[in-house]
């Protein structure tokens, strides 16, 4: 027995020496440690999660593109030029010639039309980004057309602000998919959705090699990309659940970039001379909302008082360091119409005075609904502390994301603490949600709108939101959103507190990694390694 055990140990040791030899990643392969368990489907007409958006950004092209080297202005994508007619509803796009899909099929206007119609007709969650322009499964064939092999035209139902339409066309729902390839895999009129859930049919810098859910997806460089050949010939994106495991892999050089390190691990790797940490703004804003159905919370002076009872600076200097910055408007910074004013800070005396005026000099009890994620719980506890200084006794109601969400959507909460991420890179996405509530009845069930969830109905704000989305002059439009945000700061039932920043830790030799900021997603094809 003993001799056998010794022999086993010795042979194992011998094997280990040889097996664990390779540590650093090859110069032309990018390995990323991330959390990709939110990836459910790879079909652009269906995908709507963060990791899926990042995948999409590197595998598909859209009519209009964003330039990773100059994020913000819209650049030609599959469409080399576009215009809107004087009627304000007819949009025409000229398709670039000579582009090809990964399959070798050429990209034509017919592919673009197929892609847009498909996105509308499949009616998956993100389809609203296109259907909000008046497209329906019934009218898609008529409203979206190919005038010839290289000209696409569609007609919206209202003369929206052109910037609104163009911004939405940069979203993944508007990806151009390989219609010939998908038609070969169509089943029962599903437009190839069943097939495309786990495969790719794009024209981007990379094509999909394999996707193992909750484990890894692998991309291969697809020839010469028309926007610039990718330096990395393959990209491996691994799902590593545990931050410590991500950190170890990064420190050993077995991954090039670790994207989901906790603040503690980030602080630790910052001391490592082989690793650098890059910070970038993201689109998520953290806020707490006051249900206007609640008797006390519907008092405007109470709402204002609560906005002065959060320790914004304190939190970002302490446990939120490296994760959030103070930002008090509903549009994330870098969006068209961004507002940099942060009028609120912790001011207990002012809050007490306001509460006295409201008739609650001794405070009141209230419940804060929050989901059990560490950062949110810590923020909730901080709020409990600062609320208490004005006599407000806050009780935390904690649950899983889905539990708490169910209550929120049913308008059953009192104060809700949570985050909101934009759906597409246009200010209307958050304005529509925070500011717009045309029908405050319970039956209306506008659960997608935060204003409705909090039972807030303000006709002036509604009108301003509706006007901003059809404003043709982009500069004027931006000013309208600033005005809207100021109004919400003054009287909206939302205390917007922070905007998310994302920190990516990477080996020092990695360059050109653009995370896309608030309006876009990560670009793998710009990455280089020295």
């Amino acid at each position, binding site marked *: 027995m003993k001799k056998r055990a010794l022999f086993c140990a010795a042979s*194992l040791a011998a094997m280990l020496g040889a097996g664990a030899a390779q540590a650093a990643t090859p110069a032309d392969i990018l390995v990323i440690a991330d959390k990709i368990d939110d990836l459910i489907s790879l079909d652009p007409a269906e995908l709507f999660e963060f990791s899926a958006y990042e995948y999409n950004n590197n595998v598909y092209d859209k009519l209009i593109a964003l330039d990773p080297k100059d994020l913000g202005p819209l650049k030609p994508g599959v469409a080399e030029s576009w215009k809107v007619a004087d009627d304000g509803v007819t949009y025409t796009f000229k398709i670039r010639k000579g582009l090809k899909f990964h399959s070798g099929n050429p990209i034509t206007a017919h592919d673009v039309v197929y892609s847009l119609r498909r996105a509308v007709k499949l009616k998956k969650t993100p389809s609203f980004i296109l259907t909000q322009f008046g497209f329906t499964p019934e009218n898609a064939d008529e409203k979206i057309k190919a005038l010839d092999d290289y000209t696409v035209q569609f007609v919206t139902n209202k003369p929206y602000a052109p910037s609104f339409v163009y911004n939405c066309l940069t979203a993944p729902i508007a990806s151009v998919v390989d219609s010939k390839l998908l038609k070969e895999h169509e089943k029962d009129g599903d437009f190839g959705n069943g097939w495309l859930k786990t495969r790719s049919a794009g024209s981007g810098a990379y094509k999909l090699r394999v996707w193992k859910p909750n484990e890894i997806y692998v991309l291969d460089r697809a020839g010469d990309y028309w926007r610039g050949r990718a330096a990395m010939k393959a990209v491996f994106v691994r799902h590593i659940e545990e931050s*410590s495991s991500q950190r170890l892999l990064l420190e050993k050089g077995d991954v090039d970039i670790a994207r989901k390190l906790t603040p503690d691990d980030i602080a630790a790797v910052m001391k490592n001379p082989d690793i650098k940490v890059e910070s970038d703004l993201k689109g998520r804003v953290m806020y707490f909302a006051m249900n206007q159905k609640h008797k006390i919370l519907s008092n405007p002076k109470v709402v204002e008082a609560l906005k002065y009872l959060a320790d914004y600076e304190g939190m970002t200097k302490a446990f939120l360091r490296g994760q959030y910055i103070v930002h008090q408007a509903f549009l994330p910074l870098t969006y068209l119409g961004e507002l940099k004013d942060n009028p609120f800070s912790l001011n207990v005396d002012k809050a007490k005075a306001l509460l006295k005026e409201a008739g609650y000099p001794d405070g009141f009890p209230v419940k804060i609904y929050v989901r059990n994620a560490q950062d949110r719980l810590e923020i909730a506890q901080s709020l409990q502390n600062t609320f208490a200084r004005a006599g407000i006794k806050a009780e935390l109601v904690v649950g899983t994301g889905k539990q708490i969400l169910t209550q929120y959507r049913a308008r059953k909460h009192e104060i809700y603490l949570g985050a909101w991420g934009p759906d597409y890179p246009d200010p209307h996405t958050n304005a529509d949600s925070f500011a717009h509530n045309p029908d405050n009845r319970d039956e209306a069930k506008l659960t997608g709108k935060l204003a409705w969830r909090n039972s807030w109905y303000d006709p002036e704000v509604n009108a301003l939101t509706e006007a901003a989305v059809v404003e043709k002059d982009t500069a004027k439009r931006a000013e309208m959103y600033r005005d809207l945000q100021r109004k919400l700061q003054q009287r909206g039932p939302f205390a917007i507190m922070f905007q998310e920043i994302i920190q990516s830790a990477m080996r020092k030799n990695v360059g050109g990694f653009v995370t896309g900021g608030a309006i876009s997603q990560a670009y793998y094809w710009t990455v280089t390694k020295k």
Partner: protein
Amino acid sequence: MSDTADAHRRGGGDLLSAIVARAKPFVRLLLSLVVTFLGLLAITFFIGRVIPVDPVLAVVGERAPPEVYEATRRAMGLDKPLIVQFGIYIWQVVHGDLGMSLLTSRPVIEDIRRVVPATFELATMATVIGVLIGVPAGVMAAVHAGRWPDHLVRVVGLVGYSVPVFWLGLMGLLLFYGKLGWVGGPGRLDIFYEGMVPQVTGMILIDSLIAGDMGIFRNAVSHIILPSLILGYYSLAYISRMTRSFMLEQLGQEYVTTARVKGMSEARVVWVHALGNVMVPLITVIALSYASLLEGSVLTETVFAWPGLGFYITTALVSADMSAVLGGTIVVGMVFVGLNLFSDFLYRIVDPRAR
């Protein structure tokens, strides 16, 4: 009735009753299996429908407009009465259809086929380590009861019970991978070997040997060695403790004293006769330990990024992906039942009295 007619009847009846008598235990076994599985599935199914997590939200996301939400809900069959839903599910299972996973967009059967070999490989390696080290350790502890080998084994075992597995895993990774570089990092293989070994069993150690690729084999070993040592540690803590108990009981028996007096070598007394007599209960212990590892150790799988059954079921549970949870439950149930049957079978071979 004539005597001959009676005899005929009795003779034919005897054959039939003989067949029935032989078949009875099998039929009883089969019936109890069916009832067990149905009960297991029923409880899991109804718990899944009762927990306050909305599976539709997991599919459509929180921004979905009401029409998409309703359409998806209907497509998932969630508007039908619970009993009907369960009935439909059982009907599908019997036809080999375990449904679609909400989170991976794939048939649950395909997911299971992907994750089970990973867990199987790890559990098997861990149990082998547990047996190879645990049984001799338990024997030595019993033979030298009260002296230092015994204390050593018991302390090592106690630490094994008490230390949290994810902590041990992380510490192990930090030391053996991070600082020393002796083993591979989290994951089953270095990423360059990803997809390079043709899938036969799904167990990379075996598949790479079949393909004759020693490079991949060595790499797979370097990745599996640490998690299986860690899980093996828990396994050996339990096995050594039980072995020690059983052996102490045996070594106190008369036949042992008799054999020693008769001049039989100590080694033979201990390792052949005493150990031989504890094989029966020991096999049960080992089978139980194996089974508990086979359902997948989600904490180990999380730390080591090991894409196994434990991680699969846990992520499915948290999102109320009930088809995946039920599919995983069926697999785990089958494992336990299978191992129980197997150890019963082994009894009959090892223990002449049971024949």
